[in-house]
């Protein structure tokens, strides 16, 4: 209806069309006629705010100790060598990878099953389950450290990476399930029905029809899981006691907490911590926004 209105408005009444000057500035953006400088100036200011901190970290990681130059030249690898070998960031990196990938796999698999149930079935406890998912968003993981610690102690999982994987998975599940069920709702049921008619079982129909369409959503959810457990440090700090089991954020925290902070080592450790998440981010960036509009905001 609005389209028809617009059509009517432009054609028979030329007086209503914008003056030539405004028309010249018209672009294909959503809100037309925004002068370019009003986009570029604030954007550049914000980019400065975003990028200077990253640059600062790279600067400290790459320039020799004691240098105060604002350009990291000559570039040195001494800080990286130091944190990787002496500060055992190599071991931390490996542990973080294990935790990240395992949480990714567990979160995605469990949330996929749960999300499918919520999207495609109506069953008595569904409402209660949804409510539990939402309510769990209000329960802070940090406040549950004590009972969680006791549970893992009883399960004899203290100082095993498994405890961190479970804790990370559990706290990411609610949002992941809500997101995935949103994605599945967007896939028409009729597509699945068609496959059933063709003789597929529910599972095969799901794998053949729904799963390929879910790929962007699953990548988004899996990446959230990976990035979140890669960055999060409280569970690792509390449940892992020996140094050979620690993860990168805990390693960074020990560098921060040291009496005399070795800034070069800290920065190099930061760069090592940032590299995998930046790669993941670059990979999912284009799905990020569509992922959110399909899943979270629309519910």
């Amino acid at each position: 209806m609005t389209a028809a209105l617009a059509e009517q408005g432009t054609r028979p009444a030329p007086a209503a069309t914008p003056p030539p000057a405004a028309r010249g500035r018209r672009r294909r953006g959503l809100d037309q006629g925004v002068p370019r400088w009003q986009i570029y100036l604030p954007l550049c200011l914000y980019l400065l705010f975003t990028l200077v901190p990253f640059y600062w970290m790279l600067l400290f990681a790459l320039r020799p100790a004691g240098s105060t130059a604002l350009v990291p030249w000559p570039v040195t690898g001494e800080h990286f060598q130091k944190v990787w070998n002496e500060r055992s960031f190599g071991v931390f990196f490996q542990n973080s990878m294990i935790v990240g990938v395992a949480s990714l796999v567990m979160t995605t698999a469990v949330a996929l099953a749960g999300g499918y149930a919520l999207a495609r079935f109506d069953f008595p406890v569904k409402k209660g389950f949804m409510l539990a998912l939402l309510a769990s968003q209000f329960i802070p993981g940090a406040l549950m450290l004590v009972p969680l610690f006791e549970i893992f102690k009883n399960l004899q999982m203290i100082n095993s990476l498994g405890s961190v994987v479970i804790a990370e998975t559990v706290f990411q599940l609610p949002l992941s399930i809500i997101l995935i069920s949103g994605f599945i709702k967007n896939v028409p049921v009729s597509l699945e029905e068609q496959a059933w008619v063709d003789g597929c079982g529910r599972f095969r129909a799901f794998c053949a029809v729904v799963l390929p369409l879910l790929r962007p959503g699953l990548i988004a959810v899996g990446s959230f899981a990976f990035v979140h457990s890669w960055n999060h440090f409280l569970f690792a700090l509390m449940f892992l006691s020996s140094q050979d089991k620690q993860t990168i954020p805990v390693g960074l925290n020990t560098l921060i907490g040291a009496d005399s902070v070795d800034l070069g080592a800290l920065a190099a450790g930061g760069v090592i911590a940032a590299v995998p998440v930046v790669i993941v981010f670059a990979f999912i960036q284009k799905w990020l926004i569509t992922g959110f509009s399909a899943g979270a905001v629309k519910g």
Partner: protein
Amino acid sequence: MADAVAKPPRVTRRRTGGPARRLPYLLIAPAGLLMLGFIAYPMLSVLYYSLRNYNVTKPWRNGYAGFGNFTRILTDDPQFWDTLVFSGKWVVTEVLLQLLLGLVLALLVHQTFLGRGLARALVFSPWAVSGVLTTTIWMLLYNPSTGISRYLADAGIGTYGTSVLSDTGTVFWAAVVAELWRGVPFFAILILADLQSIPRDLYEAASVDGAGRARRFLHITLPHLKDAIILSTLLRGVWEFNNVDLLYTLTGGGPAGQTTTLPLYVANTGINGHDFGYASALTTVAFVILLFCSILYLRLSKFGGDAK
């Protein structure tokens, strides 16, 4: 949404009989069991501990305490009220500034311009960085002898040797800025996602009718974004309240307890102070406050009240 829920079950029931009735339960079982074991059960233990004296270092005093912990919180713990006030100040400042900057940022990168893809990737990138890594980066920037302030002082702005993190006057804003740095992108992504669902026709019709940019924003964009804004501010508020990563590592709650939020106080009481009973009671109070504020917020903002 209503028909999305209503349609599938009809299909299911027609197609299959007994086993299919069990299928949804099998599907939610893994998630349900994990959440029962590692969210519900710990939550109940928190409630149980909150009624007890439970201190690892003073085992002789352990036992049932009734509401002793709670009366102590409400009547005999000035630090609780201090941390509550700071939590409120922290959450409100962060959420308001993140909303404002996030909205502006989303509107900016929603426009079509040369280099938009790259600009989006760059301004959203701190989203991927979080917690301790944010702290690492801002520690380097705030460092008094080698950080930004030194170079500013070289250029004649400010003084040498000032650490914004150890000065009670600046530490709050220093932490706010660091948190904004990683928080704004997330907000912007959520708002941008919703911006993209506004039909373009609406804007065209409005400009044809002579509505200027400000009026189009006020009468089309904002009303459309209302629910997304309410939901994202609520989620961010809860998150900013609960999250302790940044403050724990950046300021440690200091100087002089100036940046201790309630969850940070709980963590200090329970984990460093070993007073699990009291920490559990604090947790319970924090949870109740959070739930109360959230419900109040949803009521006051009339979430989903009027149709778009």
